[in-house]
């Protein structure tokens, strides 16, 4: 009886196709995860197998649920920033960014140009970081151990930049409503130039290891094919949608942070298989480098935080001399700033797709409601559609290619 319970997780009745088990065939129910090395966290897949062939697959999620959305309501906007990067450990600065953009939209404040350009640089470096981990783990899942080591070697360089910028390698909380937490460090430009200089050759290395590799192609081409219609119907976004022919990138089509000023391509493939997603992400890494370089060239000086003292903390040096600044600092830290009543849905192109924040402000210092539109959730949901008829071994490739971050899926 316990064995048959997982079947209720199946969603096949959505399109009315009956289970083959009902037709009297011998199938087996198998749990994959939540502790399986290739499920990238705590994803559980309930599989119905006919031998090695997947008949049905339904994802079961929630193992990493931490009640973020309730916590958002209970903390001030200032404290909420720290929750955003914990949601997606591969894209901390991107998550900080979307929250900051949403709150700034409600506050209607301007961000200094230095902060805006720095945000672009950091968001693109974070995209590189995320795609590197994805590439490394995807290759590891398919047995290419060395790629994983190379990717993590490069990722260290990026994490070092994040650490020098924010003091933290992963939980940065650096991009805040109104601007940045601190100014960029003096050696920021040198470090980023070094990444720009060395990185293209590294991507060439990955391509040399994988792109024409016969084993890699055998494992990826034609596996987990996602059609354009299915991608749109299931709300897929980001590289997953672009590998299926959806020519859409929020950075290009709804520019934020001045992305319209930079020249870059949006890579799109039409095959929709694991290999296409691999090619799209590799091309995106090259394009991200282009954006970083252009942004770094035009990085202006000046303030990094808005001059609106209702939101921004007083400068450190004022605290020693000005009683008002000290009081102000204390009030901002304990009570937070008030955000006028309003609603916004603000989204950015995260490494995984459309990452949106729906925030309802009620005029107090805490959001009335903050909801995260997580790209991984819809990208993951489509898995039950695209692995039907695939082999169990291919399932590993498909999970990796969708790049789900369970912290974001479960929130």
């Amino acid at each position, binding site marked *: 009886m316990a064995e048959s319970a997982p079947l*209720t*997780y*199946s*969603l096949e*009745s*959505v399109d009315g196709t009956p289970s083959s088990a009902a037709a009297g065939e011998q199938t087996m129910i198998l749990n994959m995860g939540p502790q399986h090395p290739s499920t990238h966290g705590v994803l559980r897949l309930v599989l119905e197998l006919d031998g090695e062939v997947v008949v049905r697959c339904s994802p079961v*999620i*929630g193992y990493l*649920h931490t*009640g973020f*959305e*309730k*916590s958002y*309501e*209970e903390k001030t906007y200032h404290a909420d920033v720290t929750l955003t990067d914990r949601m997606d450990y591969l894209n901390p600065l991107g998550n900080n960014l979307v929250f900051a953009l949403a709150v700034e*939209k*409600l506050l*209607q404040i301007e961000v200094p140009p230095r902060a805006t350009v720095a945000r672009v640089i950091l968001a693109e470096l974070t995209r590189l970081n995320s795609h590197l981990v994805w590439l490394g783990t995807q290759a590891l899942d398919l047995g290419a151990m060395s790629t994983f080591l190379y990717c993590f070697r490069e990722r260290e360089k990026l994490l070092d930049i994040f650490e020098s910028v924010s003091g933290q390698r992963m939980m940065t909380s650096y991009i805040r409503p109104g601007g940045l937490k601190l100014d960029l460090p003096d050696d920021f430009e040198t470090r980023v130039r070094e990444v720009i200089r060395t990185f293209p050759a590294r991507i060439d290395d990955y391509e040399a290891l994988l792109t024409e590799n016969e084993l890699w192609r055998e494992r990826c081409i034609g596996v987990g094919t996602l059609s354009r219609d299915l991608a*749109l*119907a*299931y*709300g897929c976004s980001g590289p997953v949608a672009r590998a299926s022919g*959806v020519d*859409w990138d929020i950075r290009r*089509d*709804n520019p934020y942070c001045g992305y319209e000023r930079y020249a870059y391509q949006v890579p799109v493939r039409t095959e929709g298989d694991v290999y296409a997603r691999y090619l799209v992400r590799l091309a995106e890494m090259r394009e991200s480098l282009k954006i970083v370089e252009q942004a770094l060239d035009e990085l202006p000086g000046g303030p990094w935080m808005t001059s609106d003292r209702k939101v921004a903390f007083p400068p450190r040096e004022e605290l020693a001399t000005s009683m008002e600044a000290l009081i102000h600092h204390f*009030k901002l830290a*304990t*009570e*937070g700033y*008030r955000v*006028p*009543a*309003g*609603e*916004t*849905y603000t*989204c950015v192109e995260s490494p995984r797709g*459309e990452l*949106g924040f*729906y925030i*309802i402000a*009620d005029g*107090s*210092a*805490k959001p*009335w*409601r903050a*909801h995260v*539109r997580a790209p991984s*959730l*819809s990208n993951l*949901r489509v898995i039950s559609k695209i692995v039907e008829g695939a082999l169990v071994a291919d399932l590993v490739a498909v999970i990796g290619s969708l790049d789900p971050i369970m912290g974001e899926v*479960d*929130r």
Partner: protein
Amino acid sequence: MTDAGPVKAQPPADVVERRLAEGFPSARVRRDFRTSELAATVQPDELPALARFLRDDPELQFARLVDVCGVDNLGRKAEARFVVVYHFHSLRLHRWLRVVVPLDEKEPTAPSLVGDFPSADFPEREAYDMYGFVFTGHPELTRLLLPDDWEGYPLRKDYPFKAEEIEFSFSVGRVNAGKVLRRPDSRPWRDKSASGGGR
């Protein structure tokens, strides 16, 4: 399209506002004062028709249902306590549209959009999980993130954030240390902390 209804002197310049006024006049469209974002409010029974209209209208093509989420307005000035919020996205206009559906407080029920928009599946289950909203026609409305035997709906405002309130000098006597709060008024700390503690 000719309309027998009262003709407005100035048709809305915005294509979404104009098409909604022409094709779905029962939807109440308002623009957020600060963020200028559009939101259309409809009653639950009109929702599937509106969603199909938004999707199929050649000028709008809001074909992607991006997100579904619940909102609880307990203790706040709003038209209904429970609201479901849908976000649609149009690849033609490159715009998002918010659709707000107020629900009955006693029986929060809305028609499911899973049939027309498969992307509604997980988010509707999440709204059921967190708020207890029932989406009629959903093929499998079970808890998504929480365990199946979980009691209550955590994102409702009368569900406490912490299991017990901590006693501070300003709340002496009001707090029974160790007592689990599961009452509708179990969030006395919410507004106090925003205004600096209070008594």
